[in-house]
């Protein structure tokens, strides 16, 4: 297992290197000049040129990339072009906020999605099944803006139960994690349902029932555990998506996380922030994939990594 893990982690480096090249070149190909944006509307050409030079943006792209790569290997992601704050500092401040929101959302999604999926599968083709699947469809198709603003309207403006915006206490976490978790819950519910339906048709489930095992045990131990492999994969991918920052949810709830940082940076052509954030997101995805693969071995004794 350990050599396999080491190999997987080694393989991550070429992936991240590729990501860094693509991002670096792409953001410099799109029109828009960070120096001009920084200088503001009233700035003269001389000011813009001065800023460009002071930021090193007048050097050839290949030189800029070499500097970036050398610094990144020393854990220095550079400074924001816009406010001069170190990128690592900015990410360190925002990642915990995004992580808190992502974890709360995935918990919400699992707590809703998995039981809903099981319920749906065990009541296959009943009205319960149809109701769950309609709700799931609604969950995936509801725009985050719409859901978020409506939740604020009901629970903050009308009922005064929860705060509308902000990220200070656990109360602030409830509305955004429901908003963000809704779509993931729907996807997890659908995945759980189809996996369970398949497993429930297997011979060993019929055997378990035939020998008189209680239905709860059949579902919980014999069926669910075997149905979990695809579900875990989906949960892992969803968590990756959530961790890379939920831009819309973060905007609606004034939640200053990684997603908003990235969008603001793209609009402002803040190259170091874009590069740092994308690298962080890529790393998160790569690591989560490894974790998901490891989870397979725990769930299914037949899977062994040599």
């Amino acid at each position, binding site marked *: 297992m350990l050599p396999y893990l080491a190999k997987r982690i080694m393989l991550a480096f070429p992936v991240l290197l590729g990501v860094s090249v693509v991002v670096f070149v792409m953001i410099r190909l*799109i*029109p*828009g*000049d*960070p*120096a*001009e*944006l*920084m*200088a*503001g*509307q*009233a*700035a*003269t*050409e*001389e*000011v*813009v040129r*001065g*800023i460009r030079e*002071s*930021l090193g943006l007048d050097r050839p792209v290949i030189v800029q990339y070499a500097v970036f790569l050398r610094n990144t290997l020393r854990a220095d992601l550079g*400074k924001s*072009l*816009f*406010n*001069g*704050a170190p990128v690592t500092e*900015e990410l360190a*401040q*925002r990642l915990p906020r995004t992580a808190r929101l992502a974890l709360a959302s995935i918990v919400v999604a699992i707590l809703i999605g998995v039981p809903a999926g099981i319920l749906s599968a065990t009541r296959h083709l009943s009205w319960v099944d149809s109701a769950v699947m309609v709700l799931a469809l609604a969950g995936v198709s509801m725009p985050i*803006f719409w859901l*978020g*603003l409506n939740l*604020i*309207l009901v629970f*903050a*403006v009308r009922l*005064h139960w929860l*705060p*509308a*915006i*902000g*990220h200070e206490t656990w109360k602030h976490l409830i509305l955004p994690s429901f908003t963000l978790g809704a779509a993931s819950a729907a996807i997890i519910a659908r995945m759980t349902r189809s996996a369970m339906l398949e497993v429930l048709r297997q011979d060993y489930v019929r055997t378990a029932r035939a020998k008189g095992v209680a239905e709860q045990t059949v579902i919980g131990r014999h069926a669910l555990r075997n149905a979990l492999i695809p579900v875990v994969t989906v949960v892992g991918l969803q968590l990756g998506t959530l961790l890379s920052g939920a831009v819309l949810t973060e*905007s*609606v*709830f*004034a939640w*200053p996380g990684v997603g*908003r*940082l990235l969008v*603001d940076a793209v*609009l*402002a*052509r803040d190259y170091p922030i874009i590069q740092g954030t994308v690298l962080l997101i890529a790393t998160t995805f790569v690591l989560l994939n490894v974790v998901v693969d490891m989870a397979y071995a725990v769930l299914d004794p037949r899977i062994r990594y040599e």
Partner: protein
Amino acid sequence: MHKRVFPILLALSVAAIMVLPSFAQQTGGTLIIGRGADSVTLSFYASAAPDAEVMGHVVETLFRLTPDGKIEPLLAESQRLSADAKTMTIRLRRGIRFHDGTAFDAAALKWNLDFFRNPANAVPFRAILLGELSDVTVVDSNTVQLSLARPFVPLLSHLTHNFLGIHSPAAVERGGGMRPPTGEPYGRAPVGTGPFKFKEWVRGDRIVLERNPDYWGSEKPRLDQIVFRTIPDSGARVLALEAGQIHVARAIPPRETSRLAVNRALRVDRAPSVRTIFFGFNVTKKPFDDVRVRQAVNYAVNKRAIAQTILGGAVRVSDAPISPGVWGYAQTMTYPYDLQKAKQLLAEAGYSSGISVTIHHPTGRYLEDAPIAAAIQAQLREAGINMRLATLEWATYLAFTGRPVDQNEVQAYMLGWGTVTGDADYGLFSLFHSSQWTPAGFNRGFYKNPQVDALLEQARGETDATKRAAMYKQAMDIIMKDAPWLFLHSESQLTGVRREVQGLIVHVTERMMAHFASLNR
């Protein structure tokens, strides 16, 4: 001269949310202001309104633009401009201290002005605000003399600009200095003389200011704290206001105002702004090199209908290139909606069979910018002008429209300009003088009229206010006739305010001033 009384329109153009009689005012409390964008830097390297409105509470300028449009001394006590408009002597108020306890005096002022005007420091607003300043001399500890390279009357207005707020030199040094291009690291925690002291800044989230109990002015701050919160989504900002989580919501969408009007817990304040919205024509390129085509577009667009339907009446249709909030404004000729006249002008210009043009516009930058562009497209079609819309995100947009004349492919572009010094020079010189062709300045349509150039130059040196105003009037009449723009409107600032808030000022220069505001509990 130093207390110019502005026209009555100017007084109307600044909306002060009325200050109740002083017995109703309470002290204490935290005022929370929700706004769409965070500040970038709170130093000389500031370049936008979100920076200016926070700085205005912490660092003070020598002079200030009052809500009713006068220029008053603030850190200065008085000033005198020499007859040739080349020397300004400023006497400073005595006994003022910065928040760090050091004294504000002539030496501190000289340090600030010298830093700002030193080209090596690359301050973004150097050229436009203090470009004409050639020397700063300390006469005595409370008197400073400013020498100008050329006569420059607007200097007094420029000294009211928030970006020229005076910082504590000792604090700048202790804070690690102000380094280009963002004023780091000092720019994260400014120290001035204002009624509020800087307390905390969580980037992307909030800026917290606290009361300066030792404020020098006769009127004292009442609030304990002011918090500027960043809430990017305008819908969420309105809901947070309704939920009572914030006291003030900046830049409310026009479509929300009628819904909020029935809510007794709050009010919607409509204040004018000195920001003028226009479509600029590239006058060096066909078809807009012909003045008749430019005039035709002005006649063919129904600006009043756009103001009413798309913007809910929240704007003022332009009758000059600058808005009434600006000194030097005067009503000029206008282009009423007249389709026949537009068609006739196009025919005279040889385009009776119609024209096809591409218009560049940003999205999400100005109030309803993209819908306005679409409405203009539909209206121009009636006149036989086929307009293709090129919608660009702001950074790309600036890059496209900011190219030098020989590389500039843009035919027409939508922009806004805020004349934030409150003086016509700032609103006309950078936009219409031929020395200001982009990228040197902000004349992005390459307009050039020697008569306008001469008038704008002369006005800079004219110390007689009446004569100076007449020069601007004459220049604006010519500009209007030349029609280098499609003149649209000046924006309004829609602000949602909870009832308990008193004494808040939404300034015509797009800043929120809570210096002496209070909360009724």
